[in-house]
């Protein structure tokens, strides 16, 4: 294993460790307010200071990693599986099946997803529990995010369909369904893995963007995205540039870790030829 992948694995382990043991590591609760120390700077008591409601930023950072680490990969996995199924079937069987599936893909691509998200959130009852609402949001993201990946997967599946080894499998009397599951999907694995790793940071950042509109993780639950909102006001950032480096650093770190795994995957794929 190369040094870069070692570092990436170490960083990922650190983030996973922090999020799993947030209960023990965090000095305070994520929603615990300290009225005596509002917008305080870093100190022994608050390692990263407090936000404008007097909550410990460090504790919120630890708890916030759970959203990024669990929901984003879950949504990415879901959308990648959908992409594999739709793109794989379309590329494999071609003809009318491909036309219908690709029309569906284009339809999903043309949906104004932001309006859809706002509409869904508007339909949900106001007293909907924050964890439930955020799960629904990510599920929706997963449902909408598969379309671009499906096109990539379809292109790869078409290559497999016309390949000599697909003909070989047919010559041996292997059925089309078995050909799809046993011969096509393993060959799409690198493409699917790449699509998964690409969508993880996209979903993390989308969550941050949604947080800006109040569609992300609802208060008081912390997430890296909602914590980044503290940086949305240029005035405060200019006043105190290193005020809240936590979520920015961790988001960048996680995205870098994921990209590093992407590179590792590609170099391994190249090695295998």
């Amino acid at each position, binding site marked *: 294993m190369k040094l870069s992948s070692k570092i990436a694995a170490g960083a990922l382990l650190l983030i996973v460790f922090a999020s799993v043991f947030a209960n023990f590591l965090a000095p305070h609760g994520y929603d615990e307010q300290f009225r005596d120390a509002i917008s305080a700077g870093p100190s022994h008591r608050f390692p990263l200071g407090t936000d404008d409601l007097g909550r410990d930023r460090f504790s919120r950072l630890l708890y916030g990693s759970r959203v990024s680490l669990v929901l984003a990969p879950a949504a990415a996995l879901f959308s990648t599986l959908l992409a594999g199924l739709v793109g794989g079937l379309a590329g494999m069987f*071609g*003809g009318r099946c491909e036309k219908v599936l690709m029309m569906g893909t284009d339809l999903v691509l043309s949906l104004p997803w932001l309006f859809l998200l706002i509409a869904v959130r508007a339909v949900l009852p106001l007293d909907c529990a924050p964890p439930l609402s955020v799960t629904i949001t990510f599920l929706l993201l997963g449902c909408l995010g598969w379309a671009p990946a499906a096109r990539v997967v379809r292109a790869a599946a078409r290559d497999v369909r016309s*390949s*000599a*080894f697909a*003909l*070989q*499998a*047919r*010559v*041996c*009397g*292997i*059925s089309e369904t*078995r050909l799809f599951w*046993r*011969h096509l999907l*393993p*060959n799409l*694995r690198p493409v699917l893995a790449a699509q998964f790793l690409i969508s993880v940071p996209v979903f993390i950042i989308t969550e941050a963007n949604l947080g800006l509109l109040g569609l992300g993780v609802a208060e008081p639950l912390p997430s890296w995205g909602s914590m980044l909102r503290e940086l949305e006001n240029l005035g405060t950032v200019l006043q105190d540039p290193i005020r809240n480096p936590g979520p920015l650093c961790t988001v960048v770190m996680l995205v870098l870790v994921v990209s590093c795994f992407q590179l590792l995957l590609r170099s391994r794929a190249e090695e*295998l*030829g």
Partner: protein
Amino acid sequence: MSAPLLDLRLTVDYTNKPGVLRDVHLEIQRGEVVGLIGESGSGKSTLALSIMRLLPGQAAAPRGQIQFDGRDLLRLKGSQMRAIRGREIAMVLQSPILALNPALRIGTQMAETWRAHEKDASRWRERALATFELVALPWGAELLERFPRQLSVGQAQRVLIAMAILHRPRLLIADEPTSALDAITSAEVLALFKTLSRELNMAMLFISHDLLSVAALCDRLAILRRGELVESGPTAEIFQNPTHGYTRALISAVPQHPMAAPVSNDLMALSEFTRGQNEAEPVKAPAHV
């Protein structure tokens, strides 16, 4: 004489290229090795894929009939045809490295081939190993763990042959199985086909562009040119008395270099004999090149 194992009369058109096969008539007896010779684009592979009913999408449905053991393959349902593919009629493709799935171990691919026709999935291993022995593949059980990229071209071709004969088919179609191999490996593989057809009493349709290299293997030859069967008959008869000008041209296209390794002395003598009957003396290659 009993009815032939395979009796086909076939016309195939591609949408952008009509007349790929024009009323080709071919018979193969049980256990007989028939060589189908023709240049590139003469329709050899189309004929092979038509028998398997695996022509690509741009081809119109083949017209005519393919009688295999009393059934017309062209009239079978898709599922019935699938049951025949690989079990009764098997095929060896021409590019061994490409024809193996790069993502799967050899063992997985053998198991898949076995499971395509057998419910009892547990017996694939012993059958695969026995078949490896039959095609003289080294390593035995260790080979099952390997990936295609870890094999040489010759080994990959033997694995493909093993996959094709796993179910001991009655007819084996070999579509230029030696075209990707070097001369020595190709000679070994040809010898292997000869042994297999004898030991398994398996009929073979051996497709090639190289008349001389397969002649020693085949009981009968059929010469295909631009979608038409110009000549067919027992191998010796075709060499002694080719009736069609194209066949004569093929026979005299044998390497003339004095250092060229004779594939079979008998056949060289035969081709010398036929050359004498031609008025035009073929151009001899210079001794020093």
